[in-house]
């Protein structure tokens, strides 16, 4: 990794990077700040940036009003569960489409994506009836299934794209060396696929985490994730921006931590590529 990077260049890109990052992040930062304000300060003009009366009462209210841990656990189960199933089913499919494509692969891929084109509101009633009759309403299994089906096309697409980036000649070489498909997968493909899989996992978890239509409409209590937690703070009769900000901050906190780790994973993937 011996790269010659001038200090000026580093400073320039650092400044530019932080500026862009800050601008994009600003609405969230503003939301987090708002969560520490009183409802009255939340919409005061001129806006107050740092020198307002800091309070944690919004968090205290959220704490006493709803069971954050219960909802967060459900979100985690749902996001991880559906992602896991997606990977188990999706990796083999994407692998074979990327490395052993047939003349129908492209059509298949497009068809898979087209299963997502039905607007969810349009099929709510059919799905609700099916869930009612199979007893899946308000269950983890039912929700994981829905999120799995909803995200599988995306997962296959993303994995397929990343797998396609892996140079074929490496595989050819491995095959020449007499590697079996199993070995090919574990020793050659896997390390190179790590960044792609990592970003797929991250995106899939986020999609499942934020999916607010099915998770709201198919749950009541036992399987209700953080989307339901949020929906109990948005738009009541009365001022709610500070409390909603607090609830949202709590809802994105776990996934922010996850984002931190997975973006490290992305960087590690990069070094793999460079070392090879």
């Amino acid at each position, binding site marked *: 990794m011996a790269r010659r990077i001038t200090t000026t260049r580093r400073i320039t890109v650092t400044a530019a990077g932080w500026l862009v990052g800050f601008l994009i992040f600003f609405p969230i930062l503003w939301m987090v700040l708002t969560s520490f304000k009183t409802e009255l300060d939340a919409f005061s003009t001129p806006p107050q940036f740092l020198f307002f009366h800091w309070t944690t009462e919004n968090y205290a209210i959220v704490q006493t009003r709803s069971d954050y841990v219960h909802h967060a656990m459900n979100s985690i189960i749902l996001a991880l569960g559906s992602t896991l199933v997606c990977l188990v089913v999706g990796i083999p499919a994407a692998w074979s489409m990327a490395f052993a494509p047939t003349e129908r692969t492209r059509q298949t891929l497009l068809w898979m994506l*087209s299963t997502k084109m039905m607007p969810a509101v349009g099929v709510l009633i059919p799905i609700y009836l099916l869930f009612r009759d199979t007893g899946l309403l308000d269950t983890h299994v039912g929700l994981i299934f829905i999120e799995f*089906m909803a995200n599988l096309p995306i997962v296959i697409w993303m994995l397929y794209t990343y797998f396609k980036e892996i140079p074929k000649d490496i595989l050819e070489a491995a095959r020449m060396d007499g590697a079996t498909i199993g070995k090919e997968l574990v020793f050659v493909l896997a390390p190179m696929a790590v*960044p792609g899989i990592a970003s797929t996992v991250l995106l899939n978890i986020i999609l499942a985490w934020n999916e607010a239509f099915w998770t709201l409409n198919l749950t009541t209590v036992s399987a209700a994730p953080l989307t339901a937690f949020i929906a109990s703070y*948005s738009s009541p009769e009365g001022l709610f*921006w500070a409390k909603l900000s607090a609830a949202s901050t709590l809802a994105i906190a776990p996934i922010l931590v996850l984002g931190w780790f997975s973006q490290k994973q992305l960087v590690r993937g990069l070094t793999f590529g460079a070392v090879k």
Partner: protein
Amino acid sequence: MATRQTHILGRILVAPSIVLLFLWMIVPLGMTIWFSLLRYSLLDPGSESFVGLLNYQYFLTDPAFFTALANTLVLVGAVLAITVVGGVLIALLMDQPIFGRGIVRLMVIAPFFVMPTVSALVWKNLLMHPVSGLFAWVSKLFGLTPVDWFTDYPLLAIILIVSWQWLPFATLILLTALQSFDEEQKEAAQMDGTPPLAFFFLMILPHLARAITVVILIETIFLLSVFAEILVTTGGGPGLATTNIAFLVYAQALLQYDIGGASAGGIVAVVLANIVAIFLVRLVGKNLDA
């Protein structure tokens, strides 16, 4: 190149996905098509009767239909343009040796973590509100009249909010793709003194082509069904300025509880989405092979 054995194995590996997705598609689709031919109000169960294509006739002749169609296309097109161009630029920047790169990347990805209804509420009330919003305050600092976003540029306001949500997605995918770009090639180009612009257009952009295609196709799917942001900010108004097809279907399904009409709307939306997808694939699909 691939052996017969791998072909068979390939089929076996793809099979579960195909079977599951097929069932997932065909069962609700079948039910929806059937419902779309009925007069079926959820609030009046037991009165279902077969009406043929009447629901389609009403949905397609809805005075709001063509405006909604146009709004849908503008919304999707604009958000795609913003996120792809912005995503490429930001991904390139994030790929640079920034000090504290991890944190900056996390900040850039973060908007994707916020639930759509929450980001819409935050943008509408805390940022874009013409009296108490932050943007209004900033423009007053510069002595300008605050922009009244949801009255004067309602669709643009929605586009900005949705773009903000999807920019991280594009950035993340493009950044990942960028990282598989050969370091040696980069260095070689730098040593040759290839001008940066030429390097970008001749080397980087072609390398990102497939990732861009994926971003476009996947985002399109999600953007075609945006309605939560519209519901909480403008309720589809003023007039039809922010009504899109998904919002029309929403109104049929969850305001009117007209399942027949909503199903017909859903089928129309599927057909339209497929047309858009075919068009997009014609446009960018060649990047998928090779």
